[in-house]
């Protein structure tokens, strides 16, 4: 038992470092961020595309893709090593995640030769950014319940409906889209999957204002949008299986969560007082810190177990399913507790005066999303119960029912 790289891993890590050193700036401080001097999103996208182009020209753009599509056929552990190393440099991340990570592999699986030729090279070379058009106001956890309609019209399809929670829709070139092509059959059966040009007439992107005041994602409205049939991925009515392929390519997340963990909370507790003495000396505070330290440590070493599995060439085991479930709730509760330690001033989020430049206040407002996005706490518990523990599903009220006969509520 050890935490060391295998010789092959060490060699790969060295190769990655040598490359990154030659093209990027290493962070002098871990908190340093590539975009701190970036003035606009347009500028950020430009920088991201330029960086992706650099990666592409040097053969590092799509590590996990097969070599025939311009990738390196990297193993999971090599991707982890890449991420670990890349995170130490001032380089943009995230813009190409949907395209390279999810759209690409789906096209490789379901696309015909013409489609592969059309989409994959421009994806790899950074010319095109992709977004994911799956969730709808009425269909989140129950994704197969989407409504957005696709109707065949000659060689085209006409799309009408609304998608939501679409990150990057406003700067994306292409989207992967799941639609309902047949409402008269059971909900999983009547779906069809497309690639859509985000600049098509009838596509309207509206940013969603979040409780933080920021806008990280969008609503996307489709009004009589025409998509040529040659942009369909998979058979008509087989969209659910295509979508599952996309979702299965979501990254195995082994990165650390940001936003203040227990060590920062301990620092805070040393520097604020309760009843005239440092909060860190208070028994109730120490009790909470012990709980969060155990979770912090448990998650860290759970990641190490997952990474070790990948190092052996295995798929991470059941343990990997608990990261977000534990981490997101912990972030929220720690932020709330940190603000409590600050007492009356806890509400003041002025970066100039708040401890850690207002990190805990920011986390307090941001953290509800962590418990919802990418599977709510409740869905994740079902996932653990069903896929890990093997417990049965709840009976479904809409099982086998034609989609257009499924009861709907009045809430969006």
């Amino acid at each position, binding site marked *: 038992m050890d935490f060391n790289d295998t010789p092959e891993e060490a060699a790969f890590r060295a190769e990655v470092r040598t490359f990154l050193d030659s093209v990027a700036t290493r962070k002098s401080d871990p908190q340093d961020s590539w975009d701190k001097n970036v003035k606009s999103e347009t500028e950020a996208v430009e920088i991201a595309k330029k960086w992706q182009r650099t990666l592409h020209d040097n053969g590092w753009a799509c590590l996990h893709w097969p070599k025939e599509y311009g990738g390196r056929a990297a193993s999971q552990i090599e991707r982890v090593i890449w991420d670990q190393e890349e995170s130490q440099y001032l380089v943009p991340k995230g813009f190409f995640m949907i395209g390279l990570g999810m759209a690409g592999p789906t096209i490789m699986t379901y696309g015909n030769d013409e489609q592969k030729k059309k989409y994959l090279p421009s994806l790899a070379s950074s010319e095109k950014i992709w977004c994911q058009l799956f969730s709808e106001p009425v269909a989140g956890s129950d994704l197969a319940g989407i409504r957005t309609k696709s109707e065949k019209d000659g060689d085209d399809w006409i799309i009408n409906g609304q998608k939501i929670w679409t990150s990057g829709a406003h700067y994306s070139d292409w989207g992967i889209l799941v639609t309902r092509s047949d409402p008269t059959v059971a909900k999983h059966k009547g779906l069809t999957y497309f690639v859509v040009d985000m600049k098509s007439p009838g596509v309207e992107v509206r940013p969603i204002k979040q409780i933080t005041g920021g806008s990280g994602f969008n609503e996307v409205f489709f009004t009589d949008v025409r998509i040529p049939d040659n942009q369909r991925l998979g058979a008509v009515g087989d969209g659910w299986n295509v979508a599952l392929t996309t979702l299965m390519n979501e990254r195995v997340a082994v990165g650390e969560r940001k936003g203040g963990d227990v060590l920062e909370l301990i620092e805070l507790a040393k520097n604020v007082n309760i009843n005239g003495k440092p909060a860190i000396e208070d028994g109730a505070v120490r009790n909470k810190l012990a709980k969060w330290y155990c979770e912090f440590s448990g998650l860290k*070493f759970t990641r190490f177990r997952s990474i070790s599995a990948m190092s052996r060439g295995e798929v991470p085991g059941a343990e990997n399913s608990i990261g977000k479930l534990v981490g997101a709730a912990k972030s929220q509760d720690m932020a709330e507790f940190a603000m409590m330690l600050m007492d009356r001033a806890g509400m003041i989020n002025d970066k100039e005066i708040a401890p850690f430049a207002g990190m805990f206040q920011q986390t307090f407002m941001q953290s509800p999303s962590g418990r919802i996005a990418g599977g709510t706490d409740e869905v994740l518990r079902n996932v653990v119960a069903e896929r890990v523990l093997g417990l049965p599903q709840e009976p479904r009220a809409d099982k086998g029912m034609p989609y257009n006969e499924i009861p709907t509520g009045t809430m969006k």
Partner: protein
Amino acid sequence: MNFEFSDNQKLLKDQANKFLADKCPLTEVRKILESDEPYHKELWNEVVNMGWTAAVIPEEYDGLGLGYLELCMIAEEVGSSLAPIPFSSSVYLATEALLLSGTIEQKEHYLPKLAAGELIGTLADAEGYGSISPEGFAVTFKDGKLNGEKMPVIDGDIADFAVVAANGDKGTSLYLVDLSDASISKEVLSTLDPTRSQARLTFSDTPAQLLGKDGAGAADLEKVFDNAAVLFAFEQIGAAEAALDAAKDYAMNRYAFGRSIASFQALKHKMADMFVALELARSNCYYGAWALSTGDAELPIAAATARVSATKAMYQCAKENIQIHGGMGFTWEFDCHFFYRRSKLLADNLGSQALWEEKLISRVVASTAA
């Protein structure tokens, strides 16, 4: 990265599992629970024959010279089976105290006999209700004699010798005491988990010999506890997993409102939470195992982290196993109460959760100050 037990270590665990499934099903635990027998002597003899009591004892003292990772694998299975034997007292406490602090003569005397199961050892520190203060034991040592009372002493009625923490001329020290000495009065105590017996030991001018440096008892005790904490934690996650499995099996096969109760989200989420607690604890136990086996400087933090999270996980799994069984879980006839009893025994036997949480935070704060 290779943060995992090796195939050979897993094989050992698998063998231990099969052995205990055969020799120590819960019906055997019940026998001890329902009788006046303090422990399962046949099982203990079998365990000795397997070499488990000799695991980490070096070969020069007739041990097997295995590593702590191997012992962790055995501990997890011992925990899982709820084995009614003095394994933790003799192996994690008495043997560890001798390995850490014994002189060559003491090791030569005790370790081969511990390895061969000829001696059962235990550790006596507690002195009544409330947590111990390592700086102030009421039991005293003077002129080679111990005086005072230790209560409770786990396996104190069956152990052949004890490592006793007492107040000597130079402060807290550890002493080796032959429990067959006529000066000792032993009283078996009523306990919530009768599968592991507990006793009151009263020393009256009882001969004892120093173990470790005179006056270094508090520090030595802390080291023994840190090593033992990792091993206890493996017992705890073993038992926690067994309780979760029992809950799952029952829920899958119990029907209400026309369906398996395991399909109700209220129970699925409860079991998911049990799994989450167990996996966090398991990962922390691996960390503890790594630190223990390498003797890393992080051991004090790793041991406390493993200990606290395994204690929580086992309690959660044990109590929710009863809950998921409903009324049946409250009956003597079902086995749920075995896990519930043992969860409290393992939680408090090495010092309570509150004590370990305090140790953990003290150590983490100290490490962040550096």
